[in-house]
């Protein structure tokens, strides 16, 4: 598999087609979980694991699954891996399991996984699908962890659970409410698109000059 294709998938996954900021997919956990950065990391890891496995299996079966039952079979595969993660997490990481709570079963209906499964995995070979799953998952994890850190820092003055100073002394409670989540997410997307436009414009200016 050529290095260029690898770079392309990697860049696509994390930066150019970042699922959370560019495609705005998988927003439910992004808004719901980012009050605590650790659960974001846990969620990111779970989503990445499920994404890689389901992409691999789906790209393996892509020619066998007839179109009529495409969505049900994809969903069954994804649900199996999610239940698997849930069992492993409940057995070995109980506190992460309880901090994710409702959002763990919701990975099944997470738009990223089904989106990537249908748009990428069902048209590309196994190797690329696995990579795409990995980098898309990475992009998702980086994005929500960044948001998690910011919201946790502003919301209840702690970083990854370690309390920096007494919450009542200084903390903007607004950021740990649901309204705060929307605002942070909006500003993050705005920042991301602004940076991306700037890069594009610089690249175009360079191209025009050359």
């Amino acid at each position, binding site marked *: 598999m050529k290095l260029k294709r690898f770079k392309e998938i990697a860049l696509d996954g994390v930066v150019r087609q970042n699922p959370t900021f560019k495609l*705005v*997919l*998988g*927003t*439910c956990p992004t*808004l*719901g979980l980012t009050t605590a950065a650790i659960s974001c990391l846990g969620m990111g890891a779970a989503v990445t694991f499920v994404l890689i496995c389901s992409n691999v299996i789906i790209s393996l079966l892509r020619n066998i699954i007839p179109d009529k039952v495409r*969505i*049900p079979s994809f*969903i*069954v595969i994804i*649900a*199996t891996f*999610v*239940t698997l993660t*849930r*069992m492993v997490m*409940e057995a070995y990481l109980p506190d992460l399991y*309880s901090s*994710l*709570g*409702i*959002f*763990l*079963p*919701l990975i*099944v*209906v*997470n*738009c990223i996984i*089904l*989106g990537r499964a249908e748009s990428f995995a069902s048209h590309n070979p196994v190797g690329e699908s696995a990579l795409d799953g990995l980098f898309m998952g990475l992009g998702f994890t980086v994005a929500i962890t960044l948001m998690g850190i910011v919201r946790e820092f502003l919301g209840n003055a702690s970083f990854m659970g370690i309390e920096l100073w007494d919450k009542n002394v200084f903390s903007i409670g607004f950021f740990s*409410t*649901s*309204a*705060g*989540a*929307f*605002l942070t*997410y*909006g*500003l993050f*997307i*705005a*920042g991301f*698109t*602004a940076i991306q*436009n700037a890069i594009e414009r610089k690249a175009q200016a360079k191209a025009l000059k050359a």
Partner: protein
Amino acid sequence: MSGILSIIIAALFSQNFILVKFLGICPFLGVSKKVDSALGMGLAVTAVMVITCVVTYPIYTFILLPLGLEYMEILVFILVIAALVQMLEMLLKKFSPGLYSAMGVYLPLVTTNCAILGIAESVIAKATSAESAGFILKDGFFMQYSMGTAALAGLFYGLGFTLAIVLLAGIRQKVDKLNIAKPLRGFPITMIVACFMAMAFYVFTLIG
């Protein structure tokens, strides 16, 4: 009577699925460009939510629970829901093109919607005291579900969803016309609008 009333008020306002419970945000942001598409989406979600409640509750309590197969809940639910939605779409396309043009098109989009599994999880919270259902379990009033109220709750949660998405679509149609700073266009401004809506709905959580 007050039980049902409290469910209705909770479903529409104080436990609104999008603005308070954070479920079903993907279509909420994606499909709310125009009011009519938002309405179509809302109705589709309501229909599927009613199906989910009516289907998941008996499956869970009469099949999964007695056999001790709780861990199968996600797999069975999502499989059944996806299949039912696909059938519903085909039936609608055949027998009522009018209704189909209004909401049928959104049905495949609805199956990948967090709100569906969200309500399924909260309905089975009635059947078990499992911690796994997570934070939805904490509101006491979900506890007194019976078959009827489950469907009713599904209906009103769907209407709550529709309320939120149509509200946003109305505002968004206006807001997209304004010339706002370039990076803020599109999703960011929608987010900020949703932020204000969430603030408004936060008030209901205090009263509700």
